[in-house]
C-alpha cells in the first residue's frame, strides 16, 4: 500500500483540477454536515427537556372575559368556574393561573436576595395559583409545604399584590442559595416587600423557552394568588388517567353553562400538551428536519460527484491500467490504487473541511447565539466523509480492476 503513494501522488499532479474539486467538495460538505448535525443535536436536546408536569393528562383552557368586571366580580366568576370544573367526573383537579409551562412567553420576574440589590440573582417564570396548583400540574414537592387555603388571595390586572409566601423550583432555590438552605429564606421581586420560600418543587418548566430564558432555565416560582385578571386567565385541568378526551368535551360546555359572557377560542382556545409542545418546539423540530434533509442530500450529491469523476479517470486510464495489469499487477493492486487515491484526496479535503467547519461555527456563534461546536461532531463528520469517499469510489474502482491486460495492446 505505502509503496503506491508516490506514484499516486505523481499521477494526481496530472489531474490537479479534478482532485482539487473533489477535495474542495469534501471540505465544504464536511463543514456544513458537521454544523448541521450539531444543530440537529441541539434542537433535539430542546425537544427532550423535561417539563416536570403530568403532560399526558393536562388540558389548558384560555378563558377571556367578554365583560370587563372588577377584580372582585372576576374572582367570584373564577371561583365558581373552579368549583364546577373540579366537580366534573373525569377531572382530577383544576387551577386558575396566569400562564402555563412552555406557553412561549409570559411573566418573568427578577429575583434579588436583598431589597436594594441592583443586579438580579435570578429571573423566575412566575405562576399564580391556589393550593391546588401543585396537585393539578403534578409537580413534585421535595421540601417544605404546599400553600394553605388562607394564604390565597385574588389578584386583578396591574394590581400590586405581593404574597408573603412562595414556592420555588429546586433550580431557583439552588441558584439563590447555593448552600442548600433556601427553605424559610426571604427573597425580593424588585420591591421592598419580601416573600418567604415555604416550599421547593423538583422540576417546573418555565413559560418562555427563548434564548434569554435559557440562561435562567427551570427558574420558576409560584405565588398563592388566584388570577382574576379582567382580560383573561388560563384554566389548567388534570384529567384522571384516560379521561382527557372526555374532559376536553365537557369542560368548555360546563364553563359556558356557568356563564356565557366569556370567550374560548375555537381554534387554539383549548390545548393539550401534545399541541403545546408542538407549538413550543415547532421551530426546533423543523430545523432538525431541515438540517437532516440537507445532510442527506448533500452527502448523496458529494458521493455522486466522486463516482462521476473517478469513473472519468478510470476510463481515461484504461490503457495505463492494462499496461500495469500486463506487467503483473493484480486486480487487488488496481482496486487498492484507486481506493488509496481517493483516501489521499479525502484526507486533504477533510483537513481543510475541519478548519472550515470550525470557522463556520465560530461565525454562527457570534451571529446567532449558537453554542461552540463539540469536537465529537467534527470527528463524526470526518469519519462519515472518509467512509463516504471510500464507498463512492468502490464501484468505479472495481470496474477499473476488471480492465483486461489486453487493453495495453489496443490503441484507443
Amino acid at each position, binding site marked *: 500500500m505505502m509503496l503506491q503513494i508516490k506514484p499516486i501522488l505523481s499521477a494526481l499532479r496530472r489531474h490537479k483540477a479534478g482532485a482539487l474539486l*473533489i477535495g474542495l467538495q469534501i471540505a465544504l460538505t464536511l463543514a456544513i454536515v458537521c454544523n448541521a448535525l450539531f444543530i440537529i443535536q441541539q434542537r433535539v436536546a430542546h425537544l427532550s427537556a423535561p417539563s416536570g408536569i403530568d403532560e399526558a393528562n393536562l388540558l389548558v383552557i384560555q378563558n377571556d372575559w*367578554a365583560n370587563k368586571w372588577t377584580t372582585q366580580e372576576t374572582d367570584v366568576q373564577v371561583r365558581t368556574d373552579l368549583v364546577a370544573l373540579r366537580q366534573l367526573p373525569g377531572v382530577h383537579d383544576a387551577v386558575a393561573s396566569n400562564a402555563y409551562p412552555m406557553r412561549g412567553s409570559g411573566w418573568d420576574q427578577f429575583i434579588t436576595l436583598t431589597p436594594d440589590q441592583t443586579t438580579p440573582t435570578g429571573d423566575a417564570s412566575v405562576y399564580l395559583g391556589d393550593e391546588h396548583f401543585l396537585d393539578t400540574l403534578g409537580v413534585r414537592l421535595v421540601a417544605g409545604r404546599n400553600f394553605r387555603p388562607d394564604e390565597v388571595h385574588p389578584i386583578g390586572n396591574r394590581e400590586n399584590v405581593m404574597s408573603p409566601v412562595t414556592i420555588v423550583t429546586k433550580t431557583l432555590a439552588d441558584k439563590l442559595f447555593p448552600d442548600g438552605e433556601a427553605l424559610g429564606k426571604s427573597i425580593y421581586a424588585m420591591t421592598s416587600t419580601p416573600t418567604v420560600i415555604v416550599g421547593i418543587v423538583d422540576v417546573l418548566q418555565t413559560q418562555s423557552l427563548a434564548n434569554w430564558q435559557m440562561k435562567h432555565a427551570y427558574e420558576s416560582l409560584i405565588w398563592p394568588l388566584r388570577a382574576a385578571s379582567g382580560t383573561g386567565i388560563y384554566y389548567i385541568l388534570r384529567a384522571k388517567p384516560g379521561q382527557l378526551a372526555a374532559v376536553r368535551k365537557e369542560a368548555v360546555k360546563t364553563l359556558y353553562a356557568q356563564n356565557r359572557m366569556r370567550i374560548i377560542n375555537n381554534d387554539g382556545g383549548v390545548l393539550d400538551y401534545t399541541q403545546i409542545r408542538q407549538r413550543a418546539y415547532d421551530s426546533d423540530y423543523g430545523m432538525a428536519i431541515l438540517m437532516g434533509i*440537507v445532510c442527506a442530500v*448533500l452527502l448523496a450529491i458529494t458521493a455522486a460527484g466522486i463516482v462521476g469523476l473517478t469513473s472519468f479517470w478510470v476510463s481515461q486510464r484504461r490503457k495505463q491500467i492494462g499496461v500495469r495489469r500486463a506487467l503483473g499487477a493484480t486486480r487487488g493492486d488496481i482496486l487498492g490504487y484507486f481506493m488509496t487515491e481517493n483516501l489521499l484526496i479525502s484526507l486533504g479535503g477533510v483537513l481543510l473541511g475541519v478548519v472550515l467547519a470550525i470557522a463556520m461555527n465560530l461565525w454562527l456563534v457570534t451571529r446567532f447565539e449558537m453554542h461552540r461546536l463539540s469536537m465529537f461532531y467534527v470527528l463524526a463528520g470526518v469519519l462519515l466523509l472518509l467512509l463516504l469517499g471510500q464507498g463512492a469510489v468502490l464501484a468505479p474502482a472495481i470496474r477499473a480492476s476488471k480492465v483486461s491486460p489486453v487493453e495495453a495492446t489496443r490503441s484507443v
Partner: protein
Amino acid sequence: MFAYYFQLGLRSLRKNPVLTALMVMAIGFGVAASMTTYSVFRATSNNPIPQKSSQLFVPQIDNWGPEDAATTMGEPPPAMSYTDAIGLMRDHKAKRQTILYPVGVSLIPADANLLPISERSYAVYGDAFPMFDVPFLYGGGWTTAEDDAHAAVVVISKAFNDKLFHGANSVGREVNLDGRNYRITGVMDDWNPQPLFFDVVNSSAFPDPVQLFIPFTRAIELKVATNGNNNCNKSPANDGWEGYLQSECVWLGYWAELPTETDAKAYLQYLHAYSAEQQRAGRFHWAPNERLRNVMDWLDNRKVVPPESKISLLVAMGFLVICLVNTVGLLLAKFMRRASEIGVRRALGASRKDIYAQFLIEAAAVGLAGGLLGLLLTGVGVFGVSLVFDPRIARLATLDVSLVLLTFAVAILATVLAAFYPTWRAAQVQPAWQLKSN
C-alpha cells in the same frame, strides 16, 4: 449558430445520460434548496410599507437608566412608559404621531343566542390611519376632536364588516364592544402588512390581520390593560391603574411621521432635549439616551427575521456552492473526455471563441434542465415549508412569477459560471497534440 450549438449540446448530453442526470440533479437540488429558503427569507424580511418606510419612525427614550441598558448594550427599552408617550404626544413635534397598544376587545353580538368573540384590536390615535396608509372601503378614521373627547368610535376591518353587516356600508352604525356601544367611523379595505411593522414588540411579527381600532384615549379611560408585553424595572410605587400609568413600566408603542431627513434630525434633537428636561426635573438620574429608527431599521433591530430563516438560507447557499463545485468537476470530466473531438474541430478551423460558445451553450442547456428540476423541487419545498417554519411564517412563502424567473436565472447563471473553467480547459486543447497522439 446558437441553435446548432444548442443541438450539439443536447446530443452530447444524451451521450452520457448518467453524468448528465447527476449534474442536472445537483443543480436542481442546490437551486431548489436556495430558492425555498429564500422564499421564506424574502417574506420575513419584506418591507411592509415601502412607500413610507423611510418616513415612519419609532422613538425610544431611556427611562430605566444605565443599569438596565447595560444588559441590552446601551439600548433604551423597546417600548414606552405612559408618562413619556403622553409627554411626546402633548409636545406634538412630528407631522403625525400615535401611541398604540394591543387590546383584548370582545364583540358582544346583538343576538343573545350567539357567543361573544374576541377580535385582534389596537388602541391608537386618529393620526394612525393616514400615517400607516390604511385603505378605507367606507368612511375613514376618527378626528382629533374625537381623540380629545375619548369618543366611543371604532374602525373595523373588511372581514369584520362582512361578518357583521354582510359587506354593507356600516359607517354610522354601532357595535357592542365589551358591553359598550361604539359608532363605526370607517371600514378598512383588505389591509394586512407583513411583518406587522407597527407592533413587532408584542407577540409574533406575522399575526392574523387586525380587525378593530379604538381610540387610545378611550381605552385608557376604560382602564383597558395591554394584551401585549408589559415590562417594569421595579414595581410601581402607587397602587391601581393610576399608579400603573405613573410608573416606569414600558408597554406602549410610539410612531412619528417625519417626511424629510431634516425633520428626523430635528426630532432626534427634540428627543434629546426631552430627556434632558426629564433629567433636570429629577425624573432621570442619567444623561439622555435616545434612539430614532425608521421602519426597516426598527424591524432589523427587533430581529423580525427569525434566526431559523437566516441559518437555513445560509446553509442552502452553502449547499448550492457545493452543488456547483460538483458540477465543475463533472463538466470537466465531460468536456475533457471529448478532447479528440475538440482537436478535430480546431484543426478544421474552429476558433477558440467557437469552442467557448459551444461548450457554454451546452452548459446552459444543463442549467436549463437543472432549473426545470429546481422549479419542481422548489414547488415541493415551498409546499413543505410549513413543516419547518411557524405556520404563520410558512403561509407567507409563495411560489410567484418572480421566484420562478429567479429560479431559472440562478440555475442557468450558476451553471454557466461553473462551466467557465472546464470550457477554458477545453479551449486550451492543442489540435496538433490530439491528432498526433491518436
